């Protein structure tokens, strides 16, 4: 088992290099002219401006040269400069990372809690209406286009009912908290601004639910299957024979034994959520990495696209690796053998 882990660790750098290579060549083998994203149409007819721009952005070099320069820069943490914001991509991304993290973590919590609760209930009331209902809810969640369900829920809860605020992270009339972690819910708490915290939380609920719903199905399905198996185990009978109540039997004895495999699927869902955030952020005007990626793709801003894809790919890889490590640590039988 640890041999497998070492092999995973060793192949990591190669996979990351592969990610960089693929994204680089993708962005350069292109039909659209990246110059159009840098300079205006009128200036395109001016050869001097074009040449200057090409030189400035390194577009005058041959492809292999551009690749070497780019990879070399990446290794020093330089993701290049965005065509549109004219700022280092890394700086742009770091600035937007906390918003994405905040959204994804909140979505993860909602998705996990819902998924586990539905899975447990579905297993306990196997083949009852609750079982079928939770299966339907989960399947709908993984079939919903978030860019549509987000709109719909915004319309219902914000416009029609007025229960929740519209897009964004904080009411415009409120003073944003001093930036510490970059996650507004945390920063408002740290600043001791309770009103702003409640408002930030209200803003977070809808996008986090929309995103979290998409992974509920994967989690609840796994939890249900594992719970069904565990509930047939003799130690569940032992727990009942001890005089434990049903809730205690379900949560303390049965669910605990399903947590290790559940942890794996939660970890992989986390990676999935990072990409799901792309569309959710767009709908909710959430200033994270996802909406940055969409803006970059729309503007054919190649350094930004590559940057966000590389960072997304590496995050994906690392999250999955950490999940597998956590899986091994969490399982006492594997840990000790």
């Amino acid at each position, binding site marked *: 088992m640890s041999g497998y882990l070492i092999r995973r660790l060793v192949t990591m750098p190669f996979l990351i290099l592969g990610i960089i290579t693929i994204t680089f060549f993708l962005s350069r083998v292109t039909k659209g002219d990246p110059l159009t994203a840098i300079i205006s149409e009128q200036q395109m007819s001016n050869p001097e401006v074009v040449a200057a721009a090409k030189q400035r952005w390194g577009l005058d070099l041959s492809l292999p040269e551009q690749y070497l320069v780019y990879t070399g820069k990446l290794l020093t943490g330089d993701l290049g400069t965005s065509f549109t914001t004219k700022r280092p991509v890394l700086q742009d991304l770091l600035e937007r990372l906390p918003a994405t993290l905040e959204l994804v973590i909140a979505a993860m919590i909602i998705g996990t809690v819902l998924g586990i609760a539905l899975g447990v209930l579905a297993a306990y009331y196997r083949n009852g209406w609750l079982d079928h209902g939770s299966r339907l809810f989960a399947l709908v969640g993984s079939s919903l286009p978030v860019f549509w369900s987000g709109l719909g829920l915004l319309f219902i809860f914000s416009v029609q009912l007025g229960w929740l605020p519209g897009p964004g992270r904080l009411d415009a009339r409120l003073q944003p908290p001093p930036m510490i972690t970059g996650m507004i819910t945390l920063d408002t708490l740290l600043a001791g601004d309770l009103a702003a915290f409640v408002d930030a939380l209200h803003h977070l609920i809808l996008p986090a639910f929309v995103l979290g719903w998409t992974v509920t199905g994967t989690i609840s399905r796994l939890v249900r299957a594992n719970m069904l198996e565990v509930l047939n*185990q*003799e*130690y569940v*009978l*032992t*727990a*009942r*024979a*001890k*005089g*434990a*109540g*049903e809730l*205690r039997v379900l949560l*303390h*004895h049965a669910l*605990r*034994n399903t*947590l*290790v495999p559940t942890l794996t699927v939660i970890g992989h869902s986390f990676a999935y959520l990072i990409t799901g955030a792309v569309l959710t952020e767009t709908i909710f005007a959430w200033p994270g990495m996802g909406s940055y990626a969409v803006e970059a793709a729309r503007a054919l801003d190649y350094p930004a696209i590559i940057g966000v894809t590389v960072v997304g790919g590496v995050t994906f890889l690392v999250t999955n690796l950490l999940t597998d490590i956590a899986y091994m640590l969490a399982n*006492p*039988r594997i840990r*000790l053998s």
Partner: protein
Amino acid sequence: MLKHQDKSLLSVRNLTVGFQVGGVTLDAVRGIDLDVARGEVVGVVGESGSGKSVAMLACLGLVPRTARVAGSVRFQDKELVGMPQSEMRKLRGSRIGMIFQDPLSSLNPVLTIGSQIVEAIRLHQPGISRKQAYDRAVELLDLVSIPQPDRRVSQYPHEFSGGMRQRAMIAMAVANGPDLLIADEPTTALDVTVQAQVLEVLKSLRDRLGLGIVLITHDLGVVAGNVDRVAVIYSGRVVEAAEVGALFRDPRHPYTRGLLSSIPKLDEKRERLFSIEGTPPPLGRRPTGCAFHPRCIYAREVCLKEEPALRLAGASLSACHFADSLEQMPVHQAAAGPETTEVHQ
């Protein structure tokens, strides 16, 4: 019923347990009577599928919600059949302890032995602190002869040997000083030498704590020398009940006789062990008349038609039409092809 006990601890009367299968109720237990007194070990013997475990689980309300339980189970003057789960929970694990066949699968693999015993204690004595309960768990492990209990208490079940696991299970079952212990095949999954140790632990607990014990087993060999009285169960009914000595000396039911002759004996050299041919009828495929007749080497016409009642024969209660005359009965050699066990219903 069997020698009326003055201070009967558990008294089961006409217990019936049925399961709903495809709209039909199939009875797994069909009117069982059983008594257990303080300080007494009662053996409940039968093949797997005979309903012996289901009967005892039903006493504790541990059968699925869909199961139908009827009859009467009195425990210390409380009626357990129909008792609300919330009240039943107070009895389980405190007044009545239970242990199961496979100690590996009956202990929770992700919790330490200690925390599982602590849980058993604190569920019923919430006033005890975690620390006190932990000390008590160490004492209990010591009581069931687990070496180095203070170290063992914080280990996981997979770090224990099979015999130690079963002793830990026993420690957990007696954690709150119960009056009754139900042991469901406690030795079946263990090696022969370890079996003896576990049975020894059970008997010493009976002596020290004055427990009443129900020992469920499929092996009459386990019963010999370890119990006071025996009830033999076949197809959901008691077919013979007697003091253990009488049962071994003078069995009054063909099934008991079959079971007895399948016990290996040290003083006899036989080519191969005798065993009863065929298998017990599955639920819903119970033959007419005496449920045992397809496998019975004495079966007669009447056995196919009438189900015999339990009645006194010699020193036993036996449910056989020929309980008084088994000695003189001719035996047919070719009893019991599996085809005779096919659907009668």
